[in-house]
């Protein structure tokens, strides 16, 4: 590098501007591709953007830490966005009340099946203990999952990644499951996506329509609560078995 370019690079590497701008550019690029593919779930925006960023950071030898100094501003918005989920939720208030009992039962079954099946299958194929503990809260939204992982003895940062992969798998796979099982009701489609695939599933559900999105948001919030309460209680039993 000529001295001038390296000077520019030194500035950019130290400032949050680059990480932030790259995140937004990667997202814009990914949504463009997503649209070009006519919203095909395989062209998942999170997957495309993450792959682009990882490639870019690896090629330029930039550490995740440096990148996150900028990207944290986007990451921070997960908080207010979670609060904002109350609004589409409220729009479904009437239907929620009518379906309260079925939703609660589905929540309990779904929440347990998400954690138990992940740990059971992982241990069947020989995953290590720490990996299993990081895997257990994979279906709930990142901030909750990280807190739960810490509490039960997993690695929070590994959990964050597993949560994102889970979300992408759910967003991509849901339509095939629904097609196979002939699930057509928007509320059911959304709710199951929110339980299994948290915010990324919810983002996908909002692309279907507002009602699907609202039920996904509800499921994601409820499963966050349920997992935070239940998993620390279930884990000791799970690992002794």
């Amino acid at each position, binding site marked *: 590098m000529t001295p001038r370019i390296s000077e520019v690079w030194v500035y950019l590497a130290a400032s949050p501007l680059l990480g932030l701008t790259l*995140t937004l550019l*990667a*997202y814009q690029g990914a949504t463009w591709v997503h649209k070009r593919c006519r919203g095909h779930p395989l062209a998942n925006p*999170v997957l495309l*953007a*993450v792959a682009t*960023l990882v490639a870019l950071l690896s090629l330029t030898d930039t550490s*995740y830490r440096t*990148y*996150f100094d900028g990207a944290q501003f*986007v990451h921070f918005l*997960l*908080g207010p*966005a*979670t*609060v*904002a*989920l*109350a*609004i*589409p*939720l*409220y729009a479904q208030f009437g239907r929620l009340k009518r*379906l309260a*009992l*079925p939703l609660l*039962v*589905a929540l309990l*079954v*779904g929440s347990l099946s998400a954690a138990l*099946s992940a740990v059971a*299958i*992982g241990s069947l194929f020989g*995953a290590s203990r720490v*990996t299993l503990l990081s895997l257990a809260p*994979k*279906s709930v939204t*990142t901030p*909750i999952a990280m807190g739960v992982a810490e509490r039960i003895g997993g690695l929070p*940062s590994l959990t*964050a*990644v*597993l949560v*994102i992969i*889970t979300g992408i798998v759910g967003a991509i796979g*849901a339509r095939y*499951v*629904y097609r196979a099982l002939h699930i*057509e*009701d*928007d*509320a059911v489609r959304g709710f*199951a996506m929110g339980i299994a695939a948290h*915010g*990324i599933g919810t*983002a996908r559900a*909002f692309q279907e329509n507002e009602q699907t999105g609202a039920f996904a948001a509800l499921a994601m919030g409820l499963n*966050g*609560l349920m997992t*935070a309460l239940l998993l620390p209680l279930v884990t000791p039993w799970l690992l002794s078995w």
Partner: protein
Amino acid sequence: MIGAITLLLVFQLLGEVIARGLALPIPGPVIGMALLFAALAVRGGPATDLRKTAQDMLQHLSLLFIPAGTGVMLHFQRMSDEWLPLLISLVASTLITIAVTALVLRFLSRRRDLPQETP
């Protein structure tokens, strides 16, 4: 828009204070969401500004997961050591959970929610 964002942050802050103050295992933003939901129920719905801002924000929910997802860089070693159990577990468990939840909910909601079931 600024008013709506301020409101969302205030509810998040309230949620964090309650979660930490009472040492609850539930994250602050989730409590904030519950509080805002309660407030909307009392008020009878969101103001236009809040509804629009929330809509814009949630349309780009995917964006907000990108920084955490890029953290995959930190775990390449473990993930390449254990890629098989991780891959099978994540894919199978996620699809099983979607199927089980959807089937249970469809079965239980059929009687209560007939108008929505008939296309």
